[in-house]
């Protein structure tokens, strides 16, 4: 049976679409709850910082700690429940994720030490954009395109906060901009994953 060029082209386009839809769905199912958690953490931290600027360091340390602990518990639960996919080497995958983020934060601290931001706003913007850089990289290399766009969007919004919004409103801008972006993306993918995970039969 001969296949025409158009049929071959359509087949390849279909393959690419299904493959990328699957990669995006699976990544979203995994990332959704974590994004929701960090969205809430970030919103709370920015609002807290705006109203209690002197306690900014403590607010971020405590809430980041909550975020890290929550992320660990969510990842462990997801590996255990395997709603969408599971790994035969879940330990290795978890280790790889841990190493990736450890490298990101390790380099971030090195760059902070070398560059020494002048004030809290620059420090915060630097940290946010480094983390969004990690999202962009994950989006490029893990097939999770939504992370790429989320990373770029929050980076853009952060730059708006630094260069356009009056500095006294930076935190009030970043709460919905950065936190809201994370939260809404997480909710979208969490709801989508819930729908795809339903066990209804035909």
């Amino acid at each position, binding site marked *: 049976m001969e*296949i*025409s*060029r158009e049929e*071959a*082209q359509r*087949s*390849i386009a*279909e*393959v*690419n679409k*299904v*493959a*990328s*839809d*699957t*990669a995006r*769905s*699976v990544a979203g*199912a995994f990332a959704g709850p974590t994004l929701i958690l960090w969205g809430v953490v970030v919103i709370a931290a920015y609002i807290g910082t705006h109203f209690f600027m002197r306690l900014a360091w403590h607010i971020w340390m405590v809430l980041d700690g909550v975020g890290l602990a929550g992320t660990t518990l969510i990842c462990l639960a997801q590996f*255990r*429940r*395997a*709603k*969408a*996919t*599971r*790994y*035969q*080497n879940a330990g*290795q*995958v978890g280790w790889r994720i841990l190493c990736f983020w450890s490298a990101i934060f390790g380099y971030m601290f090195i760059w902070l030490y070398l560059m020494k931001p002048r004030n809290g706003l620059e420090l915060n913007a630097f940290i946010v954009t480094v983390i969004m850089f990690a999202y962009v990289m994950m989006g490029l290399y893990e*097939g999770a395109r939504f992370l790429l766009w989320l990373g770029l969007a929050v980076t853009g919004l952060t730059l708006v906060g630094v260069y356009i919004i009056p500095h006294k409103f930076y935190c009030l801008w970043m709460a919905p901009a950065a936190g809201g972006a994370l939260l809404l993306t997480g909710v979208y993918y969490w709801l989508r994953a819930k*729908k*795809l*995970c*339903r*066990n209804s*039969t*035909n």
Partner: protein
Amino acid sequence: MSSLVSLEQTEQIDFSYLRNLLKLTDGNLGAHLSKLEAAGYIKIEKTFVERKPRTFISISGRGRDAFAEHIAALKTIMKSSKEKTAQRK
């Protein structure tokens, strides 16, 4: 196969999740998977997760190779068709 090939080497996808993602029925997906399993292109594992029966599917090395060959063949068709069109011009 397009769906499975996007997974990592050691990653398995849940049957219900795959069915909902591809908008197929249980019977439809089951029939496709049976044929792929018989050809040795995929592995199907039935297990229990949190005391609930679950079915996970993964692509085999042979399946990845066969799929890559299929894609290469489609690209060859497109390339040779393009060359024929260019020659006619």
